């Protein structure tokens, strides 16, 4: 009996150790990636990086100012298209939707957010680039919006569902029309959670590269016209990383550091808003 017990205890300890080892195996490569981004990124980062466009092939220096600008424009465009659709769609799901219809839409949204983003790029290419006879920042924005919509829809719906029904009833009882109740009472009281979803969706599309490959295409120069090919930070990181020039690799690392910093800032802000609402 004693022997059986010690054997079971030993096995228990052994398996706990294996699970710890798994966790370390998960965290170590990710820690290494961070270490390299920070180390290489910090040493290549300079003021020029934020103010200049890339230097010609093989020349030292230059920056990714045009890429950061282009990314900002395209993210703003995608938000302009995606946020109203996502948020108002979520209001339908939580306030009007019959259960079967809503399940179908929810399922479509989940499936859509799992579709490879390069497919989104191909669809935006056939819908916009071909008819408009040219790559453009606008096509990039639309491709990013298609990625954004299902994320915003699902997160907003979850938040709206948590708003107690009594709040809506109180507003309706005061004679406020349903649409004003939805926007001014229900949506507003869920706002911090909705904001969390929006920030996470922005963080997600800020790093997307594949859908921009054949929509925005990228641009070596300043591109301020959304009807023309447009530079984007992730696209520049990609093309500079696979180029055979040491100077370009340095720019790619600096770009990666900036991108990761922005994403983490967005995630942490999102977490802050999320926590203030429903602390666990």
């Amino acid at each position, binding site marked *: 009996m004693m022997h059986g017990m010690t054997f*079971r205890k030993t096995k228990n300890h052994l398996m706990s150790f294996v699970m710890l080892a798994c966790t370390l195996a998960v965290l170590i490569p990710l820690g290494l990636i961070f270490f390299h981004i920070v180390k290489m990124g910090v040493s290549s980062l300079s003021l020029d990086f934020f103010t200049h466009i890339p230097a010609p092939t093989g020349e030292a220096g230059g920056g990714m100012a045009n890429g950061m600008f282009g990314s900002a424009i395209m993210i703003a465009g995608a938000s302009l298209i995606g946020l109203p659709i996502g948020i108002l769609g*979520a209001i339908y799901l939580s306030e009007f939707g019959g259960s079967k219809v809503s399940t179908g839409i929810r399922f479509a949204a989940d499936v859509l957010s799992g579709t490879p983003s390069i497919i989104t790029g*191909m669809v935006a290419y056939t819908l916009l680039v071909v008819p408009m006879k040219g790559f453009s920042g606008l096509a990039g924005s639309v491709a990013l919006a298609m990625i954004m919509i299902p994320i915003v*829809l699902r997160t907003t719906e979850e938040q709206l569902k948590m708003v107690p029904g009594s709040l809506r009833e109180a507003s309706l009882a005061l004679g406020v029309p349903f649409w004003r109740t939805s926007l001014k009472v229900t949506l507003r009281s869920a706002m911090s959670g909705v904001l969390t979803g929006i920030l996470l969706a922005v963080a997600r599309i800020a790093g997307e590269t594949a859908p921009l490959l054949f929509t925005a295409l990228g641009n070596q120069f300043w591109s301020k016209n959304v009807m023309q090919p447009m530079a984007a930070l992730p696209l520049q990181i990609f093309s500079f990383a696979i180029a055979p020039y040491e100077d370009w690799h340095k720019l790619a690392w600096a770009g990666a550091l900036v991108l990761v910093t922005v994403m983490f800032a967005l995630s942490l802000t999102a977490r802050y808003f999320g926590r203030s609402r429903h602390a666990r």
Partner: protein
Amino acid sequence: METELPSSCYTDATETTVQSARKKHEPAQAKKLNGDAVFRYLTTCFAFSIILILALMLYEMTGESMPAIKAFGWKFVKSTEWDAVQGIFGALPYLYGSVVSSVLALALATPLSIGAALFITEVAPARVGALVAPLVELLAAIPSVIYGLWGVLVMAPWLQSTVQPFLIEHFGFIPLFQGAPYGVSMLAAIFILMIMVVPIITSITREVLLAVPQSQKEAAIALGATRWETIKIAILPYGKSGILGASILGLGRAIGETMAVTMVIGNAPNISLSLLSPAYTMPSVIANEFAETTSKLHASALMEIGLILMLVTLIVNALARLLIWSVSRSAKGGAA
């Protein structure tokens, strides 16, 4: 696009749901312009635009693939010849590369993820778990181009100088490890995919484990089970389908992953048993060739690869969602 989506959704499909919604919320009827009706109509359209987008994607991809489907038929997925100049397109090397890289990456990632998720939820002190769990979630959000950057500039050179020569010297008798150390290779793609999907599978598995009812664990502990025995007899069987769903979701990600794989796999349409040789995947060939297609047929062949990719990920994702939903639903039912 803003106006295009809602306007094209004024179809008969929306009519029926507006009616069903009307039944639910009987509005204080018509004054001048009925704000509520307009609002309901608008939100309905936006919600249905999700289904519309999905349908539109399938429609466009199928339509654009038609020339290639008509020209090659089944030969498209059976042939290995890909020659844009001569107009001959066979996608087998890309299918092969996608299947091998994602399945092997998943085989490595799943046990690690389950172990890590169990550690975070069941073994680690609550404070450690509360620190590691959000960290893993944060990592799942890193853009793939950054994984690719690290893969091509740090990992691939390391594989080339250290890991691959070692494998060739000591395990070279196995066909999997024969050939020359190139660095960029199927092996590099498998490793980078593993690193990328592990945070995703871990955080979903963690959610599944958290949904296992407390009573389930308490019953096992009351019977005198050790922690590992509790995990084995009470927790894992309960969360089985959810964990399976999590790893299938990881498979979907791995198959569709574009940037990181394109940067490290070497982009050579080989079918080689050796993991050390460069290979190619479906998303990678689209990423590399689509902007510079040489002919209509070339573009159509890439579209057909995209269509296959989309159908595969649709099926995989639908399956995964159903499995994960089944766990969270039964957990909610059990709690009530």
